[in-house]
């Protein structure tokens, strides 16, 4: 006979260790937030958002060029990635049971698992080498490569949720198939698709590795797309591994700003999804 007390004791022990495990999982999150807010707030100032980094021996400076550079590259990569992702998703949802569609779906999942640094290397070969310069375009291509599978899969999930009756109703009214897909299906799934778009933008906004040898980073202002361009995550990285205290402060400030940007995009995405 096994003792019932012992069995309950064992069960209680496991439950307690699960609670402890959950706390351990959430601890780093708390620490990271506390540190970012504490260290980041002290380095934020109007100058932080309006000026470019100062040389390490001067105090102050900001990440304005990085913010603008990240914005520019996010726009370009969205211009490349979104049409491919969304129209591809329309194909997948229209032919959801096809062999080719499930093959593409599988490829997208696998592609989403490719390390982001690899997409950086490929963008280097495809863009930097032929044009003989690190550039904002190269960085955008690298980011777009990451974005496409994410948009494709999230948009497809949303399109699949549009009821078939809606599609049939439209077709029965004599609306051609392609107009049904674009006007009816895509439109009624728009809220969800926008959620997917925002989530994927949030995801690539924080990417650093694919920009290391594509956009490269820039200490100064640059508006030319075929030239190296600054980006916020790159600045955080470079400042963090530098030996200068002033730059460390900039890194923490940049981290706080990046986290705020990403979480607000995430929040916006969620509110769109709920509508």
């Amino acid at each position: 006979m096994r003792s019932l007390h012992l069995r309950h004791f064992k069960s209680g022990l496991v439950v307690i260790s699960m609670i402890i495990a959950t706390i351990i999982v959430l601890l780093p999150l708390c620490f990271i937030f506390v540190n970012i807010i504490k260290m980041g707030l002290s380095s934020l100032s109007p100058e932080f958002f309006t000026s470019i980094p100062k040389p390490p021996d001067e105090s102050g400076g900001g990440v304005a060029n990085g913010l603008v550079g990240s914005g520019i590259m996010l726009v370009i990569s969205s211009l490349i990635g979104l049409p491919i992702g969304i129209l591809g998703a329309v194909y997948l949802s229209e032919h959801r049971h096809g062999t080719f569609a499930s093959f593409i779906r599988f490829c997208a999942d696998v592609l989403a698992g490719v390390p982001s640094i690899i997409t950086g290397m490929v963008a280097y070969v495809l863009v930097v080498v032929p044009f003989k310069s690190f550039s904002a375009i190269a960085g955008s291509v690298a980011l777009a490569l990451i974005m496409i599978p994410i948009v494709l899969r999230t948009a497809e999930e949303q399109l699949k949720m549009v009821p078939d009756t809606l599609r049939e109703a439209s077709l029965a009214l004599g609306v051609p198939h392609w107009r049904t897909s674009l006007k009816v299906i895509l439109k009624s799934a728009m809220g969800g698709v926008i959620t997917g778009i925002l989530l994927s933008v949030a995801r690539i906004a924080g990417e650093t590795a694919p920009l290391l040898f594509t956009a490269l980073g820039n200490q100064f202002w640059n508006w030319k797309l075929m030239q190296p361009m600054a980006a916020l995550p790159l600045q955080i990285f470079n400042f963090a591994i530098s030996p200068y205290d002033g730059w460390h402060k900039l890194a923490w400030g940049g981290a706080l700003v990046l986290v705020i940007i990403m979480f607000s995009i995430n929040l916006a995405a969620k509110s769109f999804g709920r509508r």
Partner: protein
Amino acid sequence: MTPKVQIENLSVHFSKTEAVKSVNMDVDENSVTAIIGPSGCGKSTLLRSINRMHDLVSGAKVSGKVLLDGESIYEKNVDPVLIRRKIGMVFQKPNPFPAMSIYDNVVAGYKLNNRIKKREADEIVESCLKRVALWDEVKDRLKTSAMDLSGGQQQRLCIARTIAIQPEVILMDEPCSALDPIATYKIEELIDELQERYTIIIVTHNMQQAARVSDITAFMYLGEMVECGPTSKIFTTPENKQTEDYITGRFG
């Protein structure tokens, strides 16, 4: 003689709705009691409160008393694990453990309570499977997955798994509703045999089944126990108008 199971003034609430309304019922030892009624009448809910299955559901609130051998099972110091060892349960859909073999399924519950040697386990598996008349069908493939069995075989396996822990009462929640007529017949036959050793309470939506297998029949409607009495009486001369309407098929 005190009844094996006594239900006194039992009510079950799910958040705001009252699924069972102050039900009273006595169940004698070694009898088969059938609970019938239209779907949604609270008969499964009543059954599940007899072995405290509602503990699993957050939001379910049980008030009133259930007594097993005269002792209340809803007291604070009563261990639900112990109650469920004495009151086994068979469910609507056969639910063997898919990752386990037929053999392991039979001893799954028994092993929780006892450390057993191989020979002892072999004996339990053989005797339990024989009692549910499954032994001859599966004795050559005891180590294969339980999911390879047919629905009826799976349900008999689940009954074997339940009797392996040597319960005193077996609750059956529409045990045949997912089965074909032949499998149903076998389960009914089995209930007849099990009656010698166990007290059985069975919920069914099938009146013929209730008439065939039970000694006592209880009719529930809208959460209330309308009538409870010897099966022959309920099906021939019911006292209540609603009961009569239901068993003659005028509603439900």
